[in-house]
């Protein structure tokens, strides 16, 4: 139901590396779950409005007042790699 190529395409979108074995397992497991989810297509939903928030909330806006920011030291404290006060990452093209 969901092919190996589809799995690899989705994995690319999700930035997930999958081994060959994981790709096979994933394809089987996703197919099974999607099979169950297909149940949704039994319903006629054309006249139904979607719900994205279950509880009606008054619009929650924030006053435009600055708060103290984190120090550079704290901001970078958990970073795997740091240089020149910033978060270092490998270049897109190596």
């Amino acid at each position, binding site marked *: 139901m969901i092919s190996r190529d589809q799995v690899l395409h989705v994995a*690319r*979108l999700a*930035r997930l590396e999958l081994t060959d074995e994981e790709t096979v397992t994933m394809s089987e497991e996703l197919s099974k779950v999607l099979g169950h989810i297909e149940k949704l297509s039994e319903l006629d939903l054309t006249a139904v409005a979607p719900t*994205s*928030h279950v509880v009606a*909330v*008054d*619009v*929650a*806006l*924030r*006053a*435009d*007042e*600055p*708060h103290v*920011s*984190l*120090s*550079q030291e704290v*901001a*970078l404290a958990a970073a795997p*790699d*740091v*240089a*020149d*006060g*910033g*978060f*270092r*990452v*490998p*270049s*897109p*093209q*190596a």
Partner: protein
Amino acid sequence: MTPAVEYETVIGLEIHVQLATRTKMFCSCGLGFGEEPNTRTCPVCLALPGALPVINAEAIHFGLMIGLALGCKLNDRSIFDRKQYFYPDSPKGYQISQNEDPLCSGGELGGVRIHRAHLEEDAAKTIHSGGGGGRIQGSAASVVDFNRGGTPLCEIVTEPDITSAEQAGEFLRLLRTTMRRIGVSDVNMEEGSLRCDANISIRPVGQQELGVKTELKNMNSFRFIERGIRAEVARQEGLLRAGEPVVQETLHFDPRTERLTSMRSKEEAHDYRYFPEPDLTPVTITPEMLERARAAMPELPAARQARFADELGLNPDTAKLLAWRTELGDYFEAALAEGDADAVPLANWTTNELVQRLGADVDPAGSNVRPAALAGLVTLVTEKKITAGAGKTVLDKLVAEGGDPTAIVETENLAAMGGAEELAPVVAAALEAQPDVAARIRGGDMKPIGAIIGAVMKETKGRADGKEVTRLVREQLGL
């Protein structure tokens, strides 16, 4: 032989305007410019686990003002969505933007239809650096600074109504002056607070369907935009004339080399997987919010230009200059209100003599020349109390020291010379001093009369009326 095909250009623009709020779009970090990297961050704009966005009320307010300025429909209910892509400048792995239900839709500015205007957050700054240092020895790396990340942006998308590079430039200038006028942004292209992408296609004249478009990304000055569009239109036309297809791609224009390079040839087609941001509820625009936005709207440049032209009779260029340069227009209107000067000469003096002396980018309100003084000066000139030349001298004095024009005319003795009795002896003396010039004029060659006029002006410190001098020369030489 068939006649050569004529092509027409179709351009749509996507403009990102950084909003001049005090804090970021979804967190309370102050907006940063030029601070040390990563000193304007918090759990929200670093996308730490567990942090949640909260909408900045002022960004909504500015968004509504932009909508009003562009004649948009302001939607009662708008929805923030997640636009998902991985890049180090996007810490959450998605940008919070608006997709299907933007804050503003439809509209028009300067004859170009507006498709929509919506709010979103800016990306962080990625500085690409060479190899060396750090842990990844020798390999190229980037360093990310999140100070800018999360700055509120209004993205304005036009319909594909623009047909030339010049029109694109003109539209952007009007947009910039309009944004500046309503005070929602610094709109400075060099600093990146106004950024523009252009979607460009061409098609044979008369063809209905649009050609394949390319996207010209992130051009950072008006000049580059116009040059970039021209280069791209020429490139596309070259391709089509050679029988080759235009490929849909994103291009970068290098203003130094005038070269266009493809930016994302390798990257797979985007699939942003938009869905409504579950951390934010829909934004409902209340009548109070609308009222506040309406009350904050000043007269817009386009309307002001029309008023200057229609009501004050200014010529189109002068009206536009005064309307588009808000501070200049404000100064002009203050001078008009404070004195008895006529609008047309006052406008000319403001846009020519005053701007020349102060510099194009200086706000005259901060100069030594009070609006009332300029108005008084222009009145003196139009009432022929002083000559235009003397007026310029007075203006020099005003720019340098300020003061009152009438007083300056008095102390500097610049009042226009009354009539023939006062001026005749000066003219006679000048003719006497340059007998060969006088002889040539008498012989019917009027060209050297300038030498006589110059001498008279010098003697009278410009207080003489050039026309009267000419009349007296002719009279005295019996012509």
